[in-house]
């Protein structure tokens, strides 16, 4: 029996052994053959030597997440073999350095003389991954030329490396072709596949912001948000961006507010601890009505918690952060396309409504990789902005009372206007006030924006998949495992995903939940935070909850198993 184009592959080894690079190379190799790919990783907060892995799912059908089953394990060290051998299915295989794992009576082992090959080419130990990748391609009976192309692009500019790595991959490939055959799992290029890109949630977030006009990015490194900083600083020249790493998160968000006040579309990203430090300035953005975007990539808390793991524990925190009350946008994408779209939306709408917008993701979404179609074109939308000249006879009032609550926004430097903003309560011109009537007017003005903002949330804030009356409710990155778990049960199981958390899409939610017999909550946290919103806004207490808070994402198998129990099967 052969199984073609339905593979789950894991590469494991020590931090510093090029595990993630191998994962990306393998994933791209599959993607270039027209196959769909999803990859996710796990690693401790250790620079070298800690055990880490990447898990790659490949199929010619749509895939939404990793699965538990491992069909092929590339164990780059002994520990990987020991930890993960039980995850490999009986018909699966395990690629190892034949000199490393000896005497194991395991029929799934495919030994490759990796060390010998490295020695032959005087290659560094870190290049073991290339031999193993070649061997895997051989075992899977896939096209080695595609792999070579990917390696060539990966090491572009470093020609010596290109040749050596390709050689190593070829050696691995040939060895496995020659010595190992009959492996059940196969990969085969599809000729019709459209051109795709392999992106992470972080990549998509950054590109969504770019599409919506980002020109200023300030961020202090914090796992798992740091890759956005790396990416944007890499491309700063081509896109004319200012990318700056300030002294801390307080400086980062205040620089962003300064830049946005001046007129630049500006963003910062961080994780919970850094966001904690931004809380005061978030309120300042709200009070001054300076539009900013803050990306919060969740990891398990409280406090330092587990920096390299995943969580959905910050939902209530971002919804209520900062003293006083004000409208804010909080959106939570579930995959890269949504990350792109919602971040672009967040930027455009922050500027339209002059409110702070938060894009809430998590490590699992941020660092996993998806093969997807090119992003749809999105444009920066500018409304209510006065640039260059002001042509009214009235003096410019930054906080003019309007029906919508949105005041015309002028940029400093514009002829004929003085732009006066104020973190204290203020009048229409931005001068401080404590007059009770004016104060109420100003609070009401800011809150009037909620009416149009809620319309946006209702329109786009909830998605339903399937028609069943058993309804799974969730938000953010759990989307993938849930879709994967329920893909064969679309008639009996409905999945309702919340994309907007603030304003809360109350009507959209009611509609999406209409007719539900049972409501099942799935969240990557301890207390069911979306559940608390359902209680608050809809008086719905989910019938059952599946909550996971060990820092790991859901596996579809867990969800499916739980569903069976829920449904009394």
């Amino acid at each position, binding site marked *: 029996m052969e199984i073609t184009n339905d593979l789950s592959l894991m590469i494991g080894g020590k931090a510093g052994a090029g595990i993630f690079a191998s994962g990306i190379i393998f994933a791209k190799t599959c993607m*270039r053959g027209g196959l769909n790919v999803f990859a996710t990783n796990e690693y401790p907060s250790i620079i070298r030597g800690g055990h880490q892995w990447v898990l790659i799912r490949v199929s010619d059908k749509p895939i939404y997440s990793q699965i538990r089953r491992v069909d092929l394990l590339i164990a780059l060290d002994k520990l990987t073999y020991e930890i993960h051998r039980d995850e490999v299915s009986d018909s699966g295989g395990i690629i190892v350095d034949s000199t490393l794992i000896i005497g194991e009576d395991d029929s799934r082992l495919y030994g490759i003389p990796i060390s010998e090959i490295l020695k032959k080419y005087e290659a560094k130990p870190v290049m073991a991954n290339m031999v193993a990748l070649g061997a895997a391609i051989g075992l899977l009976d896939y096209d080695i030329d595609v792999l070579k192309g990917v390696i060539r*692009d990966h090491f572009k500019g470093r020609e010596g490396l290109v040749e050596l790595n390709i050689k190593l991959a070829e050696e691995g490939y040939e060895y496995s072709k020659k010595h190992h055959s009959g492996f059940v799992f196969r990969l085969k290029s599809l000729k019709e596949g459209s*051109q*795709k*890109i392999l*992106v992470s949630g972080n*990549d998509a977030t950054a*590109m969504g912001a*770019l*599409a919506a*006009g980002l*020109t*200023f990015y*300030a961020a202090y490194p914090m796992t798992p948000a740091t890759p956005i900083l790396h990416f944007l600083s890499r491309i*700063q020249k*081509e896109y*004319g*961006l*200012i990318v700056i790493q*300030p*002294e*801390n998160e*307080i*400086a*980062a968000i*205040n*620089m*962003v507010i*300064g*830049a*946005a*006040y*001046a*007129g*630049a*579309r*500006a963003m910062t990203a961080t994780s919970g601890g850094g966001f904690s430090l931004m809380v005061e300035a978030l309120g*300042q953005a709200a009070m*001054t009505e300076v539009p900013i975007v803050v990306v919060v990539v969740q990891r398990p808390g409280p406090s330092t918690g587990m920096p390299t793991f995943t969580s959905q524990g910050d939902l209530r925190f971002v919804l209520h952060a900062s003293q006083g009350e004000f409208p804010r946008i909080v959106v939570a994408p579930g995959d890269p396309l949504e990350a792109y779209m919602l971040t672009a939306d967040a930027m455009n709408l922050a500027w339209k409504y002059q409110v702070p917008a938060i894009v809430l993701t998590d490590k699992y979404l941020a660092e996993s990789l998806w093969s997807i179609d090119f992003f749809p*074109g999105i*444009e*920066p939308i*500018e409304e209510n902005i006065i*640039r260059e000249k002001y042509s009214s006879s009235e003096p410019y009032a930054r906080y003019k009372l309007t029906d919508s609550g949105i005041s015309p926004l002028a*940029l*400093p*430097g514009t*002829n*004929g*206007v*003085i*732009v*006066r*903003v*104020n*973190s*204290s309560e203020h009048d229409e011109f*931005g*001068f*401080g006030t404590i007059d009770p009537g004016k104060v109420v007017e100003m609070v009401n003005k800011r809150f009037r924006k909620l009416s149009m903002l809620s319309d946006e949330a209702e329109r786009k804030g909830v998605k339903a998949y399937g028609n069943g009356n058993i309804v799974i409710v969730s938000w953010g990155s759990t989307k993938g495992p849930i879709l994967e778990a329920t893909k064969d049960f679309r008639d009996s199981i409905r999945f309702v995903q919340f994309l907007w958390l603030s304003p809360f899409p109350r009507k959209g939610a009611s509609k999406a939940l209409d007719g539900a017999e049972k409501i099942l909550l799935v969240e990557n946290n301890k207390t069911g935070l979306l559940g608390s919103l359902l209680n608050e806004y809809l008086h719905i207490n989910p019938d059952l909850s599946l909550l996971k808070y060990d820092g790991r994402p859901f596996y579809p198998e867990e969800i499916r198993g739980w569903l069976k129990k829920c449904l009394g099967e």
Partner: protein
Amino acid sequence: MGKFSLRDLETGRKIVWCPGCGNFPILAALKRALIELNLRREDVVLITGIGCHGRMSEYVNVNTFHTIHGRVLPLATGIKLANPNLVVIGHSGDGDAYAIGLGHLPHAARRNIDVKLIVHNNMVFGLTTGQVTPTTPKGVKTRSTPYGNPENPLNPLIIALASGATFVARGFSGDVMHLKELIKEAIKHRGFAMLDILQPCVTFYNTYQYFRERIYKLEETNHNPKDYWEAMKRAMEWGNKIPIGIFYRVEKPVFYEEFKHAMNPPPALRKLSKVDLTKLYTMFM
């Protein structure tokens, strides 16, 4: 609008500082400096912290950002980077700049970001009714130190010099004309300029007399503001004689020049238009 006169700078707001407060001369000096420098009013951004000093933004009719406590410098940095055409002047207090905001000062200085920091150093938290600050002398009784300040004060000029500031000066509210000149020089300086002003708080810490008796002007000595060590030594003087004037002034590359690739035009002035992401895609393919 464009160039302006003193009248144009009025906002018509009632000034609510205590009568005799050392903030009045600073306000007067700033306004005069702006006029004499002949800037476009629309090009000036005044950023003020939280404290009595923060009311400056109510009284000067230019662009203003009355920010939260301690964040004048990062805010100013963001504004200046996004639009270097703007003249960015921060007004801060000794609490604002040297207590809660101190973490930003050395970084602004070493970056040589072209913003001006004018510190209304009254050696007390004025607006919160008189507590100790990092510049309150040891032993002084305040409402939070009724038995005397237990801490040694900070010397902000030394900190600025130690951090690489390219312009470091001290003024005194008791000499408004001198102050005006210092503000002008600070604004004219290309790079980060820190001007610490000895500003008596007549209500909680009245130092007019004390400083009047001790102050002397550096420009009336043979002080060479290009000499770092001389500047350091002068900045250490604090006793019977207290110097005011320009301690240190050198020219160095300013921060936004490091972002030439983003300055054509600068971010705040760039027209929004569709962004081509496809050139990125090869990286992901």
